[in-house]
């Protein structure tokens, strides 16, 4: 008997737009992908000042008003089984989120909403994640799928196959090019991050100033969009920006900055993830150069170093609390409550004024912890995060 996965009949387009809504994906070129997408850029720019529905005390449940998905068909009694296909837990941001998610799971298990969550971790490999999802479809007895895609275009067919099972599918963090999922959960997005950070730097720097951009990895939509937006804004403001991929390796970062400082002055540092921000600042210290204006992330290491050095900085946030939302969405779905088709979570940077507040709130947390992890009300707080207990 031949088995063909019918979902593959809807071709995914190449990356360029992660948003499930923006079906107009940029056409792939010979040279790969153009990450900048004016429409999405404008949309996210607007969302930065949008009002969010729901309780501000529970940002992980807030969303921007928009199209809702009716989930009455998914209403179910008794604890249900969730199947989670995770891209990886290979960076501190994902690790923090994964811890939070597991604590959220405990709550829902105790509440009798979720019976269990079976997780497969693809260890950053698209091919593995496709196999993971197929395995869930064939063997998982899943009542729902939660998918955190490793990459956008590659994961699209597999997500579609999950949708075809008729069970609810929830996608979060990085996107896919299909809107078959019941909901796609994510903070505002990469362009918003890029706008926040690049505008911050541009305000403080003048024309002809130099910014070194340190990026962790290529090819991930949410990361590429950050840079696509920032690069554009720097260009518009006449700021010279050079970008490097560092894999967040502080040694690499230090060498890059030292070499840049050896060739000329650097006035600003831009980062697409907070990991490694400290090394960048230290490179200036070691070279005896003036500390730059800098944007990092809400990772504790950066907040602490920022506080310590008193540099002019900003911590953009790619809300880590989004890791709670998929399970909470599931709760709503099983209850038959409607959920946003695209669940846009709040995403606001931490400014210098707010810094102290977040530092106190997260005292005792490890350096790799994320300030806006949003799990203060979950069981196990704060020990589980402090000890970084990874299931």
């Amino acid at each position: 008997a031949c088995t063909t996965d019918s979902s593959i009949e809807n071709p995914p387009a190449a990356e360029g737009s992660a948003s499930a809504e923006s079906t107009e994906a940029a056409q792939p070129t010979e040279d790969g992908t153009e990450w900048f997408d004016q429409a999405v850029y404008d949309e996210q720019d607007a969302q930065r000042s949008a009002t969010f529905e729901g309780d501000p005390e529970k940002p992980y449940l807030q969303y921007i008003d928009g199209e809702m998905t009716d989930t009455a068909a998914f209403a179910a009694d008794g604890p249900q089984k969730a199947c989670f296909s995770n891209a990886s837990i290979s960076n501190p941001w994902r690790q923090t989120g994964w811890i939070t998610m597991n604590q959220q799971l405990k709550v829902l298990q105790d509440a009798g909403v979720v019976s269990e969550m079976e997780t497969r971790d693809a260890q950053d490999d698209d091919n593995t994640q496709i196999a993971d999802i197929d395995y869930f479809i064939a063997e998982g007895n899943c009542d729902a799928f939660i998918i955190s895609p490793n990459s956008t275009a590659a994961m699209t067919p597999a997500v579609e196959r999950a949708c075809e099972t008729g069970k609810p599918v929830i996608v979060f963090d990085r996107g896919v090019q299909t809107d078959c999922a019941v909901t796609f959960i994510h903070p505002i997005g990469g362009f918003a991050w890029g706008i926040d950070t690049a505008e911050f730097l541009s305000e403080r720097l003048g024309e002809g100033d130099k910014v070194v951009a340190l990026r962790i990895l290529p090819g991930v939509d949410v990361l590429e969009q950050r840079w696509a937006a920032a690069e554009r804004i720097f260009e518009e403001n006449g700021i010279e920006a050079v970008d490097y991929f560092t894999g967040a390796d502080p040694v690499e970062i230090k060498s890059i900055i030292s070499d840049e400082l050896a060739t000329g002055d650097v006035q600003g540092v831009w980062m697409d993830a907070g990991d490694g921000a400290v090394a960048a600042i230290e490179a200036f210290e070691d070279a005896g150069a003036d500390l730059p204006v800098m944007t990092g992330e809400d990772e504790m290491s950066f907040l602490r170093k920022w506080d310590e050095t008193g540099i002019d900085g900003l911590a953009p946030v790619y809300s880590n609390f989004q890791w709670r939302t998929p399970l909470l969405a599931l709760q709503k779905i099983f209850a038959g409550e409607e959920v946003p088709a695209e669940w846009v979570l709040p995403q606001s940077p931490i400014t210098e004024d707010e810094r102290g507040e977040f530092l106190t709130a997260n005292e005792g947390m490890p350096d790799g912890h994320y300030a806006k992890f949003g799990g203060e009300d979950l069981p196990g707080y704060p020990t589980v995060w402090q000890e970084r207990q990874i299931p």
Partner: protein
Amino acid sequence: MNRLTSTHIVYLVALATIIAGTVLVGSTGRNFFSTGNISDILTGTSILGFIAIGQTLVILVGSLDLSVPYVISLSSLIGAGIMANQAGNILPAVLLALLVSALIGLVNGAVVAGLKVHGFIATLGMGLIVSGYLGSTYQGSAGQAPLAFRLIGATGIGPVPVSTLIMLACAAVVLVLLNTTRLGHAMYAVGGDAPVARMSGVRTLTPVIAAHVICSTMAGLAGLLLAARLGVGSPTIGSQGGYDLLSIAAVVLGGTLLAGGKGSLVGTLGGVLIFAMLDNIMSVLQVNPFLKDVVRGVVIVVAVAVYARRRTVHRPARFGRGQAHRGDAAPPRGPGASRQGDGPARGDGTDARNEVPA
């Protein structure tokens, strides 16, 4: 001879893994032999399988290929890029992707055989070259595989994915090449002892170059298969899987000597199967991803140690069962040692350790 060959041992280990899998997977209330599970395992074998087939040849001739991850990515991008969602483009895309892959293999082979650069360095360098190209040219996934092509990645006959069948077909072809063609014999000969091969009238460059070309072509096929599964080409898909070191481990696990000259493709497939089952079992058991690597690492070493323990004793004992103590001082003597050979035969840093009497 009733002695176990290394291939036998590989499959015994595979059998043990199946038993362990049955029990462990069973303990979670799952069935190891269910369609979905078998399909998951076999899917796991296909990509690694392609690469390990090629890697077997390269290792047999006494080289290594660390450039495969980048060839895989490049091939996926060329393939998907040229296809551009047009079924009519499939053939040219496949041909061009394989041609470029083969050319990379040709350069690898020429550098190794012609310029006498150790395979480790030659292919490490080639990997860097291609990776620079990928990094400079692609910002993310690109291209589009048309439906007809994606079917290959998503179709199965029962629990057996088509991709696995293609991999096995390739293995069969390479097996025939290796065992029943002059080129295959020459590969064994060159890997075993290049000067001897030359003196016997074998042209020693050809087998090394051929092995590298086939290895890169196999990597190219793997890249195309990934393009079929992903629907797009990806500049990172090759390195994501860590296929370079994993494929070498699978080959050695399959009983092939890292120093070359001895080994079997069937054993390699066994090694690949073991890895795939291991991954499958750990995933079903939801082992912490960090611990998965620990298990992989330990299994690689322990399994290879099992063969290595069984050292070659070329001569049957003449007297008694009293095991003579042969330590480091008197390693098993190959015949090359008993005549005036050309000094230590190979300098790969990889002594012929894990041999098993055939």
